[in-house]
């Protein structure tokens, strides 16, 4: 388990995600709301029945990017604490692959922060899933993370 300030939790796990335990971790007496996101394995992809998924990560960078997201949440939203957990390895239909819980004194910030967290995770955290079908397997289409186009020192002098 990796813990940063505000009792935030960022984890990559290979076993089922214990959602109730994470909700308890982010819950505090000064809070009035917790918003959670439970992302789980769908039984089809583009109308092809899925057998299972296999997730892999660039683990050290993924954890660093997840911690960046929790930092951004505290900067942007009036929240208390955050848990972001992603599971790796083989996941069956219906199993939770990613779980996010955000606690806050008031619900609006918790909703907004939770949405920002999952949207940002899907764009910036280096995790990949391979989809297994009856007749083969493919790496899922993904999103290209925003990266610097060129280093500043390489820009032509004008």
């Amino acid at each position, binding site marked *: 388990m990796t813990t940063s300030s505000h009792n935030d939790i960022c984890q990559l796990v290979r076993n089922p995600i214990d959602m109730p335990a994470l909700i308890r971790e982010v819950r505090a007496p000064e809070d009035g709301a917790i918003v959670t996101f439970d992302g789980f394995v769908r039984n089809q992809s583009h109308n092809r029945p899925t057998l299972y998924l296999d997730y892999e990560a*660039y683990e050290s960078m993924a954890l660093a990017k997840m911690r960046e997201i929790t930092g951004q949440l505290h900067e942007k939203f009036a929240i208390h604490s955050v848990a972001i957990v992603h599971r790796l390895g083989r996941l069956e239909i219906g199993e939770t692959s990613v779980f996010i819980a955000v606690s806050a004194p008031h619900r609006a910030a918790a909703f907004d922060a939770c949405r920002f967290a999952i949207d940002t995770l899907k*764009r910036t955290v280096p995790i990949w899933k391979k989809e297994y079908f009856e007749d083969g397997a493919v790496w899922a289409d993904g999103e*290209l993370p925003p990266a610097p186009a060129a280093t500043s020192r390489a820009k032509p002098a004008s």
Partner: protein
Amino acid sequence: MATVSQSTCLKVLFFGRLKDLIGRAEDSVNSADAATIEQLFALYAARNPELAKYRPSLVASRNQEFAAWDTPLHPGDEVAFLPPVSGG
């Protein structure tokens, strides 16, 4: 590629479909062979022509930060080539 001593090497990581294409997840390259991320990629593209077609849909990282293709490399750097991410 030949494994070189820790002090002069670049650690190179491949993920997702790139790992399948290259046939390995991790490699080591003499840092003298690639001054930038672009040059490092070119070493592999020369050996795996199919790799070149993935170039427009990849990002690179240096020491676990997204990095521009012209980023200079130094001995001990860890470079990864990352296909579009699909977590969640």
